């Protein structure tokens, strides 16, 4: 598997830190972080990551709104987006699929498993 760059957009700093460490440890991938939808969009534009992990529940601009914004930008709309969501929201999976996200990863997760889960979703 080649080197990948992952952008995680999550308002929780601890989640960013742990995911960054876990993915790096498990697969050696680079992980970029953003604490809000708006910052995430900017980072996606400048860094062009291979995949975006997007938290659904964020204050101000939530994951769905952020996804729609990402889709509206021609230079980043091709980047696959995987939503991070709590179990309780699993019922919404169909809605997420209809939106056009590449997949959903349920919280809580073990960050060491993320590279495997991402690879499986995106057929890397």
């Amino acid at each position, binding site marked *: *598997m080649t080197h990948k760059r992952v952008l995680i957009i*999550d*308002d*929780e700093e*601890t*989640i960013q*830190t*742990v*995911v960054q*460490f*876990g993915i*790096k*440890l*498990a*697969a*050696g991938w680079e992980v970029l972080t953003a604490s809000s939808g708006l910052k995430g969009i900017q980072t996606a534009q400048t860094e062009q990551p291979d995949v975006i992990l997007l*938290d659904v*529940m964020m*204050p101000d601009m939530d994951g769905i709104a952020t996804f729609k914004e990402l889709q509206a930008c021609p230079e980043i709309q091709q980047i696959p987006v995987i939503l991070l969501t*709590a179990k*309780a929201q699993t019922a919404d999976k169909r809605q997420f699929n209809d939106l056009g996200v590449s997949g959903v990863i349920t*919280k*809580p*997760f*073990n*960050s*060491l*498993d993320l*590279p*495997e889960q991402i690879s499986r979703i995106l057929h890397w």
Partner: protein
Amino acid sequence: MKILLVEDDEALIAILTRNLAAQHYVVDAVQDGEMGWSYGSTFEYDLIVLDLVLPKLDGISLCQRFRAEGYTTPILLLTAQDNSTAKVQGLDAGADDYVVKPFDQAELIARIRALLRRGSTQPFPLLTCGNLLLDPSTCEVSYGGQPLVLTTKEYELLELLLRDSQHVLSTDEILDRLWSSEKFPSEATVRSHIRRVRHKLVAAGAPPDFIATLHGRGYYLKALEPGADIEAPAFNARFSSNEPTSSRHSSSGDSSAAIDILSEALPAADQALSARLQPESQQQYLAFLNETWRTTQPKCLEQIGILLQALTDLQDDRLSRQQQTQAQQAAHKLAGTLGIFGLTQAMHLSRQLENWLCSSEALHSKQADLMQTLAIALQQEIANTQTIRSSQLPGGLPLLLVVSADVEFNQSLVPVAIDRGMRIKIAPNEMALVEEPLPDVILFRFPPHALDEPDRPDASELWQTLQAYVHRYPTLPILVVGDRGELSDRLKIVRSGGNFFLESSVVPDQVISAAVRLLHSSNLSARVMIVDDDQNWLHMLPTLLKPWGFKVTTLADPQQFLTVLQAVTPDLLVLDVDMPHINGFELCQILRSDPDWQRLPVLFLSVLTDAASQSQAFKVGADDYLCKPIMGIELANRILRRLQRVRAWAS
């Protein structure tokens, strides 16, 4: 070339990262000393650039820590102090070079280049075959990143097979090359050495035929098929077969001797793909989580403070909309944060609170009691979590540490432990114990006669280690296996803190069953839910029970019973009898008619002392009946005894 930059000045990080990237260096930047340690001790770097003044752990201490732990990676210090004392201190701490701020970028990069050149000379090439790695310069051998503990002869045997990996070596050839001409070992000696090395390799995850036999010809190393070998190293760069797994040198000889055995029973494909099952990754991840938890826990408790304040205001009917939003955000943050540490129970409680708080309808003061009950339960979950254990993490397996020099005994435990869903780590001597991570259960195997001759050096060290563990981790379950079960021995074990004793004649299955049982009963902070309309009792009981470490949830309104029960998922329930609307007997009947809760232990605690009430309680399914007033110790003992019985039955 990879460089770790530990620097708290963001502007400097940006400039340095850009300049180093222009020179084709890959840079990982972290902003405090503890993160520097986490990254530096986990990932491979060719050079570490350290600022002297750092939050959490200063550059000198970090440098000393790397060197004390045997890391030989070149270290370059950055500092604003241009005096010889600081320089001497830095170099004495183990740094290789020193640059004073403000510095010329070109000079810094030239110094980095010079250090990297110096470090690149490898006096001896590494010997590898598949995932097996032997470093002749340090005499360290590892398979798939796991260190192997070998005797001198076993080491020589592997080195021979590695150096001559293109040939099949006959028993005679091995005898000639490994034993001096004065000695006359038999072919059986070679075979027994081969057998022992094979065992150790298998324990580290190698296929059983990694040392393959060509009948009538001899032995050779059989690496995996190239196709099969590709995925594992690619998935986990640390375990690549072609590069050294670590520049770390064992600082105390035997301290790296612990072998972590995990999952050879799993299909190879699953093993390759599941990085979390790689013991080294799992341990490093766990260490990182624990490090992060130390700083996260106080922040979580602050969020709880916000929540509780909001709930107090709600009780007084003066919760503003803004405060409610703030409390909802606190609950949301908690749910996310706690989930990543595997604290699922606490995460569910936070989420439940968040759902109520984000409701568009105005909250009523009536709801405050219920929410406060859950918020206090949540606070206890957080406050009582001192360590994050691997068994808590999604997909995590509990870790059994076996302190034993008895190879045969150790080997016999491995397949059974794996079969029962445990990871097993073997420490042949107590030196290995200083290493993280903390196990979930620990087993001490006392050598023959160690119990009747406690003053023997090996026995006394083992006793000391046992006591040190008990002192440091009082809740860690400890299993002792020894060859004598005299009353005096058993007494000494119990007095030293051992929780369970088995005689050495037991079969592996019994040993692992005992470990599993201890593991289940080790979650000492059992959740106890108390339903009582007497507010005075409710306030007093958590304090009475506190010394026993229970997580106590109190509920005054029986009408909220099911909601709280499902949110808290207690291990035991204490019920009052007389309560408004629904009495304790009825609550008990509700439980006994529910498939999910019918086995939950129920203790009645009531002012009613008459025989009829007691008889009624047992009739509706009570496990015990106690009368008020009661001493804390008596209630705690009844609770503990009941929990132990239930767990013994369950196992």
